[in-house]
């Protein structure tokens, strides 16, 4: 057990945890941030995508000891004032089916738009590698391109 401090959605937090604890389980079990989902545990599916210092990471393999001092953003803190434009487009395009992977998809897409405000379809294909078993990819593409304007 050790103590780890970082900022979560803008607020400081400190946790006493085993250093091998994945950020995902720290967020879900200890901090009540259940919008970040568990899908595979090996960074394959991206359901657990959050931002660490503005970059999309797969929190199921990102141990708590590596976020000390960092700024962590989850779907709950993606914006401070109302929904993100991606969330608005997601609703407009009626993207989700079961919906389980969608917070991770939106976090991945938000990081992409930050790095590339006007992505091409090829950019999407290279950077959105999250898994959706319901197969909502066509609407995900549509929503991201719409949000990019």
């Amino acid at each position, binding site marked *: *057990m050790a103590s780890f401090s970082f900022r979560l959605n803008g607020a400081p937090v400190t946790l006493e*945890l*085993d250093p*091998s*604890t*994945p950020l995902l*389980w720290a967020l*879900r*079990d*200890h901090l*009540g941030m*259940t*919008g*970040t*989902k*568990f*899908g*595979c*545990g*090996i960074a*394959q*599916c991206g*359901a657990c995508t959050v931002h660490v210092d503005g970059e999309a990471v797969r929190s199921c393999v990102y141990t708590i000891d590596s976020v000390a001092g960092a700024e962590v953003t*989850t*779907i*709950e803190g993606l914006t401070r004032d109302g*929904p993100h434009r991606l*969330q608005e487009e*997601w*609703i407009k395009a*009626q*993207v*989700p*089916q*079961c*919906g*389980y*992977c*969608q*917070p991770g998809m*939106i976090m991945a897409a938000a990081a992409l738009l930050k790095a590339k405000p006007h992505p091409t379809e090829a950019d*999407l*294909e*290279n950077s*959105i*590698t*999250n*898994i*959706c*078993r*319901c*197969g*909502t*990819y*066509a*609407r*995900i*593409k549509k929503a991201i391109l719409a949000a990019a304007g």
Partner: protein
Amino acid sequence: MRVEGTVLSRRDVMQGLAAGAVVLVGGRLVANEAAAQASAAAPLNAWIAVATDGRVTLQCAHSEMGQGIYTTFAAIMADELEADWAKCDIVFSPVAPAYRHPVYNWQFTGNAESIRSYHGLIRKMAAAAREMLIAAAADQLKVPVSELAARGGKVLHHASGRALDFGALAQAAAARTPPAQPNVKPETEWRLVGHGRSLPRRDVPDKVHGTAVFGIDVKVPGMVYAAVMSTPVLGGKAASFDEALVAGMPGVIKVVPLGSAVAVVAEHYWQARLALAKLKIEWQGGESFDDAALEKSYRAAQQSKDGWALAENKGDAVTTLAGAKHVITAEYRAPWVAHAPMEPMNATVAVTEAGVTIWAPTQGMEMTQIVVAKVLGVAPDKINIHRTYLGGGFGRRLLADFVAQAALCAKAAGRPVKLIWSREEDIKQDVFRPGFLNEVRASLAADGMPEAIHFRLVAPTILAPVSPTPVRPGMVDALCCEGLMENPYGIAHRRVDYNMLATPVPTMVLRTTGHGPNNFTVESFVDELAHAAKRDPYEYRRRLLAENPVALKALDRAAELAAWGKAAPGRFQGMAFADCFGSYLVQVAELSIENGAVKLHKITSVCDPGRVLDRVNATSMIEGGVVWGLSAALYSALSFDKGHVRETNFDRFRVVTLPDTPELVTDFLENRQVIGGLGEVGPVAVPAAIANALFAATGVRHRRYPFAADGVLTTYGKIFG
């Protein structure tokens, strides 16, 4: 020796159940406690309650696992009731007889049943409620019922201009005797559903903001967590483990033996995982089989004279084939696959003296009640089930094995327990969709059209784990034979023989049930017949469906929409047709070959489910289904070694991602007379449509999928491996 097996169809199952059933539609018209409690309002029947403020609450008998029924069920109700859509709510119903499937008389969600089986029932419940509200208004206004109409959450008396809100009528309406034969309104008066309409899904905003509660997100006071490890050899058991090794670890509460698995209960999930890894569990028993042994058992069954059951026999296929000049034979394979929904199996259970409370993402509501009652030795009526959103299901959550594990952990720990399977456990402990080995022969008449067709299918049962009556080798598993039996193509002599293979691997239904694997056989083979007859595959299917004008319209619309036969140079098309889950589906795949790899350009789908209640959501179902079908067609397969499955996570159990998704074009027709299903339909014809396009492109006939395992590279696969 040939065994003329008992044909156990779903129709038989449902008739058997219905015979002993006491709750049919009439019974549901009586309000029950659940409907009353759910909204503290006046229940007009078991499904619908109206509060004094006019808010209407519908009990949602089914699970919301992505199919959108949380919205469409409410819309069907609001439309028929003439309620104000802005004042309509929906909640997940309890597990109770009133919410059973109207035909199978069993509460579950699967088989693309939600709309096709509950549409009529919800309309009846809503029509009854509307008639009760109108009758209450007639009493109050002292006018005949015939002068009144319901609209927008009010009962209106046009002659006097008076209007009474549903809320003001609720108590009086609830006190009335429900009508025995409620009259549903004609389709022409639908205002919220059908006619190309769509409503924004009610679950979407929460799912987009991360606030939707799935099973894995449930939090109850005092809750602790369980992690599970199961036997590395299927059929094995935990012989021993060293509890002392984990006793002092942070958070550890209890080690719970579960027979084929061991669980650790701890204050937090990761603590349970860390302890589980240290337990040094010794395993024993099980059967150490591998792919070669499985293959041998399929071949042995195929060549055996025993174990065969006759699933269908129309005309005389055997004699016709024996005397035919032109016989074509082929063999098709479908792979073993896992369900692998995005949300791994999990459940939260609290066991107290008073009873058992379960919070679970389940498709098998009654199954859960029965299974947990059995493992805990309590009466089923002591089990209270709260249902959550499901992060996918695809059939896996029809079973309650994971809930039973959570219940045993909760009992042992004396605390409410949330049990979560790792992805590896989710696949290791899956009950798989088995491989299908399908041998087919057909004879062609002088005009090139088939006279006789004979299927010989070897596959383990998929029905047994979800059937209320025993299913054994020697019987016909009607789900396994779906799509082979009752084929709509006009072939005079048809025979389907089925051999139920017993395997050491547990098997069950998965999205597309038997239709998926069998459609690959039928539609690839029809393409082969068209090729042998030197006919265009579309024209060939037109002739086969000549007596079925409704199916022909779907075929023609797909050909038109996909511009059949007019693909750009270098692009190739393949077509497949399905009659499944009460709907027709025609799909056209269009692809090209680039540097030896396949590039998928477009999948066109035309579906006729009789009625489309919500156009945008129906498109979701078909297009999401296409992507599911692409995973099946291109990549997903399991292999076995030393008694266990090799592909236990998404690194090796590969599924389609965004870059693999081609352009999707979808249209609907509404010519079928009875409303059909959509949830399982979309993937069905994808593997055959692609195989047929591959043949058009390369001249190579791929008779097994996934095509990656048959040497086919996709452009995406080539780049990313």
